[in-house]
């Protein structure tokens, strides 16, 4: 724990030094504002000069009057002013050509994080670890066809693993119907599709236990097809996604990337609302059904139900997700329920340019004794954390966690630090 404190102090000092070196943002902003105002004045002057020769024939110049309400029809029918200066015309056209979409285009973005952890759990050691290096590709192949890919590089004691997390090709018909094929993050609940593998996007250092990457509780990935879109619903802002795919593989934490292990496809349906009058709110529910086949031939029906409520505006932020995983063995008909939930609250403080965000998360997960698919996942955990956004694209996070797993086992306390960023 002492070592942890030393590291915290070092990070704080580094942050302070970095802060001190950055140029005064307000001064720069003022300069840019002044320059932009100057550009605006010059543009206005050019527009006036351009308008002069055409003034005799075009009588709708009233649009430039500040108090006049521009009539859309008049604007539409009015003649386009001809540029008086050949060079300017060429420059504008070149800029327009540059801005016009070209296909295929490709955007690459990376996410990475570096972590430190120290707990009082017996048998564990404190230390640094390299988090995931995550590369995200987005490519528009045509105005209606897009490709999205996500690859991660994860450190292990003896090597690195490279994983294709998502690989999706999507065809958009319109806002109400988009169909895609590939490997997804299963649209169950909120967190799994809101944050993916980018630690920087999450307020907290890690995912909640019910959607833990590599965990078994929720099938994080899904290989198949997905139909999604908005539902015409006025102010309710409804949207849906429905998918069919391979479901869990032989190792239940993994999807059947190279083929399903039975002839039963999994399906998932997710509906959520973003009400117009409550901008920032999302309420949703999901169901997932699959048949799990173990190597020994044991079969289980899996039925996951989930509901979530998210207020994502940051001041305050509130996320809550409840899930229940039901398993029924085909042969014995024994049924078990595994409830789990988390509630996370954060508030972006009004000081220091809103860079500080304290947060709290409570997590609960229970597996009954006669559960046959999961090993024991019991957890009751409280997380107190502070996120500091050092820039628009990088953050420091500190967490104190207090967790208890099985009854009778000691409570574990831990200090966790992370710096995460996108590039």
């Amino acid at each position: 724990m002492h070592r942890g404190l030393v590291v915290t102090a070092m990070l704080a000092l580094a942050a302070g030094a970095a802060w001190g070196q950055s140029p005064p943002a307000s001064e720069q902003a003022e300069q840019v504002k002044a320059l932009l105002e100057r550009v605006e004045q010059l543009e206005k002057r050019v527009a006036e000069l351009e308008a002069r020769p055409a003034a005799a024939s075009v009588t709708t110049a009233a649009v430039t009057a500040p108090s006049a309400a521009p009539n859309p029809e008049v604007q539409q029918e009015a003649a386009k002013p001809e540029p008086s200066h050949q060079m300017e015309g060429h420059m504008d056209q070149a800029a327009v050509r540059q801005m016009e979409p070209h296909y295929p285009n490709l955007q690459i973005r990376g996410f990475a994080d570096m972590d430190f952890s120290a707990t009082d759990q017996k048998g564990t050691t404190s230390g640094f670890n390299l988090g995931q290096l995550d590369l995200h590709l987005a490519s528009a192949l045509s105005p209606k066809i897009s490709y999205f890919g996500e690859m991660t590089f994860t450190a292990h004691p003896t090597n690195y693993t490279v994983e294709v997390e998502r690989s999706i090709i999507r065809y958009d018909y319109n806002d109400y119907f988009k169909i895609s094929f590939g490997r997804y993050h299963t649209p169950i609940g909120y967190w799994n599709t809101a944050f993916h593998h980018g630690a920087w996007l999450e307020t907290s250092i890690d995912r909640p236990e019910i959607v833990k990457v590599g965990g078994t509780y929720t099938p994080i990935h899904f290989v198949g097809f997905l139909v999604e879109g908005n539902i015409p619903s006025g102010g309710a802002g409804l949207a849906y996604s429905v998918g069919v795919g391979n479901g869990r593989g032989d190792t239940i934490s993994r999807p059947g990337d190279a083929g399903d292990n039975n002839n039963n496809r999994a399906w998932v349906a997710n509906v959520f609302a973003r009400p117009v009058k409550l901008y920032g709110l999302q309420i949703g529910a999901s169901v997932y059904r699959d048949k799990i086949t173990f190597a020994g031939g044991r079969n289980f029906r899996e039925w996951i139900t989930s509901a979530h409520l998210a207020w994502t505006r940051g001041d305050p932020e509130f996320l809550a997700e409840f899930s229940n995983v039901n398993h029924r063995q085909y042969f014995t008909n024994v049924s078990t329920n595994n409830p789990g939930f988390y509630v996370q609250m954060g508030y972006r403080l009004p000081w220091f340019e809103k860079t500080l965000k304290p947060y709290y998360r409570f997590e609960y997960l229970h597996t009954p004794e006669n559960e046959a698919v999961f090993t024991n996942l019991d957890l009751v955990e409280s997380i107190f954390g502070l996120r500091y956004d050092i820039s628009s694209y990088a953050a420091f996070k500190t967490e104190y966690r207090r967790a208890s797993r099985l009854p009778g086992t000691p409570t574990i306390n831990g200090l966790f630090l992370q710096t995460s960023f996108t590039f």
Partner: protein
Amino acid sequence: MKMTYKRLAAILWTACLMCTLLSWRAEGQTSRGTDIAVVVNPDTPISDLSLADVRKVLLGERQYWSSKLPVVLLIRAPVARERDVVLKVIYQMSEDQFKQYWVAKIFRAEAATPPKIVYSNDMQYELVTAMPGAIAFVDARNVRPGLKVLRVDGHLPGEANYPLR
């Protein structure tokens, strides 16, 4: 177990109370200035949008004007007043939150490209007139012939109750 559910209920209740109290404030509006017109390419089959619809377009939740015409979103570069108004009134986000929103949006595979950044009114004018489906935000004094100005909540720039100012 009963204790846990009681604890959950207490947390939810406290959180709801906090959300209500902390988010209790006036709608984001900039200091009163000239109106910001919402302009589109003249071929766009729309002439009136509610402020909620404008928000959906800007958030990338509405990406098509019709099944054959995708929305092309143009936003002025930082520090321009048009951008300030769009961020404060429509997005209700800071500059950082806006950037983070679009990084997350593309990362979630909900959009393939972010809004196009334009650096001047001339550039904005050229792009809106040249690109079908383009939508941009222009100081009402600088609206030029050849652009289609949309009504927002039934009002044009310059009218009372026009929401973008």
